[in-house]
């Protein structure tokens, strides 16, 4: 075993330690730590980053790792025994994700120095404790080697987001946004929990990797080489049900339709937290989970179709809502939902590598955009309305340059990172849609069409945001004289700007198709090191085999060249961007979307999603709960209360025979004895 793997548990432990330190500092005294507890956090995430990089290098060197670290419960069954454990699974996918999470977390910690400390926020130890625990839970989630451990950390991530979104708990907005985020994601997690129990009950294991893992056993069952208890369903149906139940948790966490409503509200949290939630933790957790157990989804056509449709629809749906928002962070929030929709689209259409690639690039450019927005918000003294900005380009050049890079990446303009990953997502959707026969191919094509249309909207809202914020003339005094930001803001921005511009070159799959040069590094990375036994069930190659040979719908890629689809999506993105620029990058922009009339109201109110969900809650769920309450109060409690009141009243009557007069007792004893004697006599037959 390589030395890197020995130290790998520290990747999770270090941020947890910083959490404990910040917590102790917060409990002890306000000023016991310099910088409100930021220093331990930064050091811990830096340490984790170094260790993650070491692990990634080791994995690149051909070693993978899957070991149980701690077994916390063993249940002996009739046929086999069930082990509940914590373990580490370090393969190319988790190693890559570790680096992303650690890097973004480190930069967010540094940025917080500028956004929180320099702005004179109070309660900083609490903030840094939350960040530390958030990072630790996400890292624990990433290295999980079984679904149960994933679930535990999944919930911890949800808890931390609740704590951090509600950081400014004295204001009215954040606590309610935090509650909403927690409840909506919990709603999804409920399905996840049921699915988890189902998987453990079916397979007797929740391991992700290896020959005994549940995706692999499912594959064997479908191939007819093994059998499991499927509770009366056909194996295909049952695995689809289980996959969809787990998908419930994914939809909640990754803010997919219809459980996306918590995410825009979560903008109430401090901006660095938003960056962390959207780029590397929380929201990423959902998509990562699907990628982690992709072997389980790859064999079920129905599950794939639903993932693809949910993804494609969410991508389009969220993009339209982003078109009309007035607040900077709101636009970014909807772009996040939309981009995670793309990842789900890729996963659903068999583009495992494409989804992972988009997860990687999106982490960098979305963190960049959020930190850039944070920088703008500092400059604007926490006014987030884009209509109060304008002309910030000349006054904040570093922020502008990096934000522009992020926006180009988000819109998918060549050669920035987002172009390569989004193009691959759409390309994979298209070729699998064309190549697969039957209804699954049609579903893929429909999802592709929605994703493609969303590209146009993405270009538009992204550059509307850039133009309104940075171009034109300042529309308020604040924008004319923004507050300057320090190194701790510009530093992380520059690092992320560089990454957002360049990470696309990690995976130039179209270039490889055209020229044959082996530049699709991420593909090679996810194929896994040659010869590692573990990778037999976890590699991209294996997933391709599952999609094509085990999946009854036989997902197949067509031979379409990459140039035309790429040109199509790039053209749409540029069109959207140019239109937005033409409309809004003027000295005195007006609200052009007002011309949409009623449609704008619909979009601005998010298609009344919140309203209908509240309506569902008050008009359907609440009456149902009322009925249940009535049944509980009258029937269930009625029986219990009845028993007690009967015994109470009969007790209060019967106790009257305790008169306190000894003669009465004597009489009762005598009568009782006589009655007994008579009864026995009659019964035994010697009396009569």
């Amino acid at each position: 075993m390589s030395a890197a793997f020995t130290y790998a548990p520290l990747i999770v432990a270090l941020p947890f330690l910083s959490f404990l330190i910040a917590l102790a500092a917060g409990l002890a005294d306000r000023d016991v730590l310099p910088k409100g507890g930021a220093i331990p956090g930064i050091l811990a995430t830096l340490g984790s980053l170094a260790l993650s990089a070491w692990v990634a290098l080791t994995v690149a060197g051909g070693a993978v790792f899957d070991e149980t670290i701690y077994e916390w419960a063993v249940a002996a069954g009739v046929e086999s025994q069930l082990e509940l454990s914590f373990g580490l699974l370090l393969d190319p996918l988790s190693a890559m994700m570790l680096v992303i999470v650690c890097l973004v977390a480190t930069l967010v910690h540094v940025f917080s120095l500028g956004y929180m400390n320099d702005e004179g926020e109070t309660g900083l130890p609490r903030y840094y404790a939350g960040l530390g625990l958030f990072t630790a839970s996400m890292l624990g989630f990433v290295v999980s080697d079984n679904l149960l451990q994933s679930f535990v950390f999944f919930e911890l991530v949800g808890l931390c987001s609740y704590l951090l979104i509600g950081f400014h708990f004295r204001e009215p907005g954040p606590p309610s946004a935090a509650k909403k985020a927690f409840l909506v994601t919990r709603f999804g997690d409920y399905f996840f929990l049921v699915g988890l129990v189902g998987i453990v009950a079916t397979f007797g294991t929740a391991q992700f990797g290896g020959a005994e893992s549940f995706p692999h056993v499912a594959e064997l069952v479908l191939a007819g080489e093994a059998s499991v208890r499927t509770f009366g369903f056909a194996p295909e149906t049952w695995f689809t049900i289980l996959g969809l139940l787990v998908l419930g948790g994914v939809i909640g966490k990754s803010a997919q339709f219809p459980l996306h409503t918590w995410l825009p509200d979560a903008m109430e949290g401090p901006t660095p937290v938003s960056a962390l939630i959207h780029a590397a933790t929380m929201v990423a957790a959902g998509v990562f989970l699907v990628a982690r157990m992709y072997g389980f989804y790859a064999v079920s056509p129905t599950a794939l179709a639903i993932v693809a449709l949910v993804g494609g629809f969410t991508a389009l749906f969220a993009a339209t809502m982003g078109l009309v928002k007035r607040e900077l962070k709101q636009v970014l929030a909807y772009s996040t939902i939309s981009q995670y929709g793309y990842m789900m689209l890729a996963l659903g259409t068999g583009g495992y590598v494409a989804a992972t690639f988009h997860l990687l690039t999106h982490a960098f450019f979305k963190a960049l955009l959020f930190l850039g927005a944070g920088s703008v918000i500092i400059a604007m003294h926490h006014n987030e309305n884009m209509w109060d900005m304008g002309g910030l380009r000349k006054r904040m050049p570093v922020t502008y340059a990096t934000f522009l890079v992020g926006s180009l990446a988000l819109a998918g303009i060549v050669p920035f990172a987002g172009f390569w990953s989004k193009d691959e997502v759409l390309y994979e959707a298209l070729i699998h849609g064309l190549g697969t026969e039957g209804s699954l191919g049609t579903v893929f094509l429909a999802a592709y069409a929605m994703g493609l249309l969303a590209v146009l909207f993405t270009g538009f809202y992204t550059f509307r945001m850039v133009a309104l914020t940075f171009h034109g003339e300042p529309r308020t005094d604040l924008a004319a004289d923004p507050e300057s930001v320090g190194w701790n803001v510009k530093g992380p921005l520059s690092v992320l700007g560089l990454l957002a511009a360049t990470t696309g070159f990690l995976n130039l799959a179209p270039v490889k198709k055209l020229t044959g040069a082996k530049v699709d590094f991420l593909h090679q990375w996810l194929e896994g090191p040659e010869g590692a036994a573990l990778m037999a069930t976890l590699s991209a190659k294996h997933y391709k085999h599952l999609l094509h040979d085990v999946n009854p719908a036989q997902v197949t890629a067509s031979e379409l060249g990459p140039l035309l689809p790429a040109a199509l999506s790039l053209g749409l993105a540029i069109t959207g961007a140019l239109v937005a620029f033409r409309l809004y990058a003027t000295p005195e922009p007006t609200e052009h979307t007002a011309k949409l009339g009623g449609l704008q109201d619909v979009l601005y109110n998010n298609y009344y999603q919140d309203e209908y969900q509240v309506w569902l809650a008050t008009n359907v769920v609440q009456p149902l709960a009322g009925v249940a309450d009535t049944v509980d109060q009258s029937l269930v409690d009625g029986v219990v209360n009845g028993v007690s009141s009967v015994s109470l009243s009969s007790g209060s009557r019967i106790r009257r025979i305790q008169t306190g007069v000894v003669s009465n007792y004597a009489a009762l004893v005598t009568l009782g004895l006589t009655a007994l004697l008579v009864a026995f006599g009659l019964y035994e037959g010697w009396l009569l």
Partner: protein
Amino acid sequence: MAVPVQWYLLLSAAMFCIGVFGVLTRRNALLFLMSVELMLNAANINLVAFARLWGNLTGQVFSLFTMALAAAEVAVGIGIILVLYRNFSDVDVTRATTMRW
């Protein structure tokens, strides 16, 4: 000529019934105590009568035990009656009704 055992039984039953009657009807605690003695001795008569019938002394030995027990019981009973008198200035058992519901 020996008296048949039935006569002893009748005597014993009569004594027992007199005792029960006393317990049920009397209000004076001392008469209570005497009635209880009557019932105990009714039992003693039974024991002795059967001991004689079967020629087995165990019953007679038992009746001796019962007498000793009765003496002890009377001591306790008298004590109770004294306390009764102290608290209620009377030995009427129907007046001491504080220990009720």
